[in-house]
């Protein structure tokens, strides 16, 4: 049991990472990784949404009519996304970041990781493992987001969390700020991940 729980938590972060292995959630990982601050807020938001939606759907799993289960899942996920958005808008420090992330907070609802984990895991498992599975998938997503944002902010603006780290003479690389570079970076991360993990390599 303990081993299974450990797998539930660690698998989405490493071997079954939603971005690098399942290749889900690419759109937002290209869009919100220009700055670490935005990426961090996005990561936390997605972790909250995946975790809580999985928990709620798992609690409801035996009562949901099969024919409308996708719609019910959508309603639950939409509620979580709106809650996150409302809370971000109410915080003085997060208001500006929420405006900067603009549509992408709302678009968490279309992030395949959320619905994917509910369909694949939460509907067939007990609430606590479902919550952990949701959170872990959110963490796996957020981890990649932060790694990508780290490189993009460092080389694209010469800063980290808005603080200047590279010497003042550094000329920011404009390609790094554009979404295509995030895709290149993501490709490199997938490459490194597969090179290190023999199980992921195809024949």
């Amino acid at each position, binding site marked *: 049991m303990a081993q299974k729980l450990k797998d539930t938590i660690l698998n989405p972060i490493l071997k079954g990472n939603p971005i690098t292995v399942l290749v889900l959630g690419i759109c937002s990982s290209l869009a919100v990784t220009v700055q670490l601050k935005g990426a961090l807020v996005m990561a936390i938001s997605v972790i909250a949404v995946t975790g809580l939606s999985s928990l709620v759907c798992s609690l409801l799993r035996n*009562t949901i*009519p099969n*024919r*409308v289960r996708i719609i019910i899942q959508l309603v639950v996920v939409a*509620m979580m996304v709106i809650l996150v958005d*409302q809370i971000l808008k109410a915080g003085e420090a997060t208001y500006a970041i929420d405006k900067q992330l*603009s*549509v992408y907070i709302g678009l968490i609802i279309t992030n395949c990781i959320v619905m994917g984990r509910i369909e694949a895991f939460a509907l067939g498992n007990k609430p606590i493992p479902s919550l952990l599975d949701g959170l872990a998938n959110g963490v796996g997503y957020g981890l990649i987001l932060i790694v990508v944002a780290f490189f993009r902010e460092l080389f694209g603006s010469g800063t980290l969390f808005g603080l200047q780290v590279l010497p003042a003479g550094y000329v920011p690389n404009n390609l790094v700020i554009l979404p295509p570079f995030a895709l290149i970076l993501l490709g490199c991360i997938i490459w490194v991940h597969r090179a290190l993990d023999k199980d992921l390599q195809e024949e």
Partner: protein
Amino acid sequence: MNTNSNVYTVIYTTIVVAVVSAVLAFVAMRLGPAQSANAKAETLRQMMSAAGIKPTEELYATSNADILQLYADSIEEAYTIDLDGKENGRLSTAADKIELIDKLKPQNKAIKAGSGATLPVYIFKGGIAVIPIYGAGLWGPVWGYVAFEPDCHTIAGAFFDHEGETPGLGAKIKDEPWFREKFSGKTVEWGDEPAFRLEKNAEATGATNAVDAITGATMTSKGLNEALNVWFKAYEKHFGIAAFFAALSQHEISEETTQNEEE
């Protein structure tokens, strides 16, 4: 229980939707005051950024409470005008009474209908006049604040914002400081058609009332151009006359000085 029967499905979905709406309504009510305080501070930041009270970055690094204080220190008066350019109301200069951008939509309609508009003018210390603009972008509303020098002719600064323009394209009207900075020092030619041009290759004509549209954001630029011109037209009678008198008195002063020199 048969969870697949029609009756069950209908009742189940109804309950789920009712519960979800109740939760969301409750949360929206509880967080409403905090959100509107943030929105007010944001509006003040945008206005003061346009008026050049402080650099935009500094304004965004300032806390809400300090922004309210800064506004109270720098605002001189605020009033509304009708489409004939006559003053038709006073606005409170208290920071928590500031009109949010959702007030601009009905005004936009009133301008287009040609009557019933109460258009705000904010006068900051030093005679800088700030007016809002509002219009439709590609995906949603675009708006902004334009500040005029005391001659009512030269633009002192501008700030633009949007609800959901494409990040990296239309969103540049807000995200790229160089775009709004281009407006500083430009002029609005009151009475001309159009009074201002935000168009492709407009800067190449050498006109002082022209700024190049953003490449790749044609619809956003078009929408912003229309918003600017519709609102400039609405303020034309107010600022056009003021600009005329400002230019006249300037002319008189310079004539007087030449006379003095001759003497």
